[in-house]
């Protein structure tokens, strides 16, 4: 698939949000009417540590242009330590992804608490802008999906 010259590029973005902080932060962004682009689609997980690197690879493979993982602030994890695991795992994964050509700008970990609706919205706006500037992700596409 190619993007026509006149067609505006809209990225596909998957956001994994932990149930306790970030998903609640997204809800607060919603009830406070703090807009962010519709390109972001949220998947609810119990904790940021539930996110298997495999899920992120899968998303890129299926055509996602950016993946963001949001969890509780360090020290505030509902399960005490989950976000620390997530942080370490993602540091490794993102550097591997960068190595194979999925730029660091397409991946992000962000801590958003349940009270930070404004931060959630600002983060998503910023992330979408960043991914949009990077354009379509072509590195990890599943060849079997191509025509």
């Amino acid at each position, binding site marked *: 698939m190619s993007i026509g010259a006149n067609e505006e590029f809209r990225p596909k973005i*998957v956001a994994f949000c932990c149930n306790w902080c970030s998903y609640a932060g997204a809800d607060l962004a919603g*009830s406070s009417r703090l807009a962010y682009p*519709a390109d972001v*689609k949220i998947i609810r997980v119990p*904790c940021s540590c539930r996110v298997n690197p495999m899920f992120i690879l899968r998303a890129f493979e*299926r055509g996602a242009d950016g993946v963001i993982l949001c969890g509780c602030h360090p020290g505030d994890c*509902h*399960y005490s330590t989950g976000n620390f*695991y997530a942080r370490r*795992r993602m540091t490794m994964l993102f550097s591997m992804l960068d190595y194979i050509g999925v730029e660091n700008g397409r991946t992000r970990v962000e801590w958003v608490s349940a009270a930070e609706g404004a931060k959630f919205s600002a983060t998503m706006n910023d992330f979408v802008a960043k991914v949009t500037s990077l354009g379509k992700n072509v590195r990890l596409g599943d060849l079997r999906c191509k025509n």
Partner: protein
Amino acid sequence: MQQRIGVFVCHCGSNIAATVDVKKVVEMLALEPGVVHAEDYQYMCSEVGQAKIAEAIKEKQLTGVVVCSCSPRMHETTFRKCAERAGLNPYMVEIANIREQVSWIHKDMEEATQKAVILGRAAIAKVSLNTPLKAGESRVTKRALVIGGGIAGIQTALDIADAGYEVDIVEKTPSIGGRMSQLDKTFPTLDCSACILTPKMVEASANEKITLYTYSEVEKVSGFVGDFTVDIRKKARSVDMSKCTGCGVCQEKCPNKKAPSEFNRGLNTRSAIYTPFAQAIPNVPVIDREHCTKFLTGKCGVCSKVCQAGAIDYEQQDEIITEKYGAIVVATGFDIIKLDNYGEYAYDQSPDVITSLELERIMNAAGPTKGHLERMSDHKAPKNMVFIQCVGSRCSDGRGKSYCSKICCMYTAKHAMLIRDKYPDVNVTVFYIDVRTPGKNFDEFYRRAVEDYHVNYIKGQVGKVTPEADGSLTVHGVDLIDNKQIKMKADMVVLAAAIEPNPDIRKIATMLTASIDTNNFLTEAHAKLRPVESPTAGIFLSGVTQGPKDIPETVSQAGAAAVKAIGLLAKDKLLTNPCTAQADIMACNGCSTCANVCPYGAISYEDKEVRGPGIREVRRVAVVNSALCQGCGACTVACPSGAMDLQGFSNRQIIAEVDAICR
């Protein structure tokens, strides 16, 4: 088995329908594989809406339900219960959040509708892979812990005890009583604070259901709702509580009286062995080891010599008490901010610039000046007093707090009125930005200060306070209504410093895994509908720990928190979250990686017979104790062989959601 899925799209009045083409969503989702029923309705959560879901489950023999509506944090339970009543396993329901994540943040109808469809597809993909789950049960320890012994904690404990449950109060300082014990009078009725608080303190101490741990701190919390285990550190008092008679001779005779009095906000000093105030409960002193000569130099021991009861114990050690609780109430209260960032008000440069809390102590008969209004520099009576409002409140510049501290307008009116009443020759001026008086009889109270007591209210913030060579202060302010700059002489300046949550709350919130906001106030489970509960089950919020509030509000919230805790303690069993981890013993090789990351110690290993194609052996494999597992999923990612999976958020389900979104 092929799933038979029903899709229900809610209009939420116009909340969703105004931005999302609901009919189109129904039409599109009906085409998804496995969907056998799709409809929309005005309010899915209403009785009629729920009846529609129940009817469809029965008529179409649905095996899964997707509701496209508001956030699952709002109505997931509602729809699950509805499904259960209709005979469907409640965990076969998934929610697509098309309100908070779609209609409320997007404006373009086409775009919003498209996103709603995609979120619906993801929910359908997930529900197709759901399996029926059954909640387990856990026991409830019928005892509550209250952290903090101020008016909030005392009231909560009294109410819980009144319902017949055991309750422990953990208080960091040597006495219960909190901030309220430092206040002189209370608004808007001008009751003496001690007169209404002391009886409650005595009641708490006398109540046989209540155990007080003063001079103690919560050190460690483990477990979960209904079954918390808490370590409490009882700091060494150096006084044997069982022997002390509270006679007070030790305090009188203590030769070291140079320690700043915390209770009097450092305006005077106290002895090294002390009770914070005369009505302290328990009436047992504490040796402040940082100021005690015996501890500093080894020489002294006067208190031990004069104590007839033989209660002084210099060798006493901290003690750790471990106790089990079903519910925990946080009532850690507040302090006022440090004023280091507000050098323009000269708080550090003149002893006659004081905070409102210091003024409370000065006005109090048991305070450093025995209740005489006087300047701290020369002990002269002031003629002109200036009050400055919003010092550090409503500041979004990073120097102070962005919120309104809520109580300052009223206590300043109280101070102004009391001063004008007792010292009619003192001129009182209040510089304010807004006077905020929502509350019963509050505005009337403020107006009395102006109309009956002739307090001079000037609209405009003060820029600077300058201490003059003659010992007076000059207040550089502005009158915005007269559009004039004002330079006013004052003998005393009182700052309404912003309040902030007790700084210990960060540590406590982390131990409790309770969410906290950027201002260090604890977050409610729902800002409007569940204001006294933390999102973490079994944790309740009482008083200023949740947000600024005055005494009546604190007391009512304390009661509400108590009722919520009682509701929990009254249950014999709790249903546990069935979304727990499970090991596939075919894939597990017993490597122990999962147990290492589990924060709950829920994973153990057993030798089990494993039978499969070509396999028949006894092997060490992981076993999850579903009563302990809280379903975080850390183990599922750590497992190198992919044996661990989380029910309700399985690998296949999340991948199906990813696929649906990226389709």
